[in-house]
């Protein structure tokens, strides 16, 4: 018969499963108590805008190119689309921001001109210029993963802040503050 071998050296190992289970428990409790937000933040904040040159999306506004963001003043870059429901929800807030004197440029993602015209007629047109991004080229270049998203770009063309989702009333102050911060170069 086997002599019961004294497992002296590995008493700790016997408690290892319980310790691992404890770690699992701590991990999932942490995940349950403070669930991570599911938004994917752009890693481009703090970096210069990618180079692009988009054709106009609307007959009464010019197209949009990187150079527009290098004129010494902060601007907002709003990524939107006529087919995006939350984009309509943020229209009044965008309008208010534009009226307060912050220029906003739009990038229309995968949009048709007639749809865009209808959208702007219905929800207002706060944009200084509108570029048409039919293959999400600029969106991908910015590290944006959905519509709407809004970027604060400083006067040297550096991305300073990203707002994900529609701009609601409560977000306006924050965005204006970020614009103010962007007045000073990094």
């Amino acid at each position, binding site marked *: 018969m086997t002599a019961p071998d004294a497992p002296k050296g590995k008493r700790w190992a016997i408690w290892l499963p319980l310790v691992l289970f404890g770690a699992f428990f701590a991990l999932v409790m942490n995940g349950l108590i403070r669930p991570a937000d599911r938004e*994917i933040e752009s890693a481009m904040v703090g970096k210069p805008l990618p180079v692009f040159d988009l054709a106009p999306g609307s007959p009464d506004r010019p197209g949009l190119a990187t150079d527009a963001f290098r004129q010494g003043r902060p601007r907002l870059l709003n990524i939107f689309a006529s087919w995006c429901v939350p984009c309509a929800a943020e229209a009044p807030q965008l309008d208010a921001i534009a009226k307060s004197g912050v220029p906003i440029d739009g990038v229309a993602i995968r949009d*048709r001109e007639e749809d865009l015209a209808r959208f702007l007629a219905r929800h207002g047109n706060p944009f200084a210029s509108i570029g048409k991004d039919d293959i*999400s*080229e600029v969106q*991908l270049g*910015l590290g944006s993963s959905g519509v709407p998203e809004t970027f604060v770009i400083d006067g040297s063309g550096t991305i300073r802040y990203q707002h994900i989702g529609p701009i609601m009333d409560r977000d306006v102050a924050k965005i204006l503050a970020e614009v103010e911060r962007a007045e000073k170069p990094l």
Partner: protein
Amino acid sequence: MHMLARLALFATLIVSALAGPLAAQDQLPPAPYAYRQLEDPAQEAKAQELMETLRCLKCQSQSIADSDASMAGDMRNQVRLKIKAGEDPEAIRGWLIERYGDYVSYKPELTALTWPLFAAPLVLLLLAIMLLRRRFTRGVGDND
């Protein structure tokens, strides 16, 4: 338990990936290389392999190669165009990580936060050796 719910989840996952949120569907035709293969089969193979390891950001649980979301299509277009222009697949992955962070790639990078993933196989092996060493008799003839 809840297997059906689990399946429902899986099913919705599939459908949402295939269709995208219907309320927010654009009408534009897909980008040129969203559903078109590169002319050179070797390049296409490279692109396909890379696309299978890039995460669709809209559907969140599928690769861009496996998704019909229009953004995934646009990402495929970019990947194929860059491959066509002769870029290295890992450089393209790096380009996307630069924009979206490590989340966009299914291939974890070795960083200060992810090294345990890569140490795990070794740790498991050492642990097994340590725990089992004493189970073996020394020689063939050694009895219990």
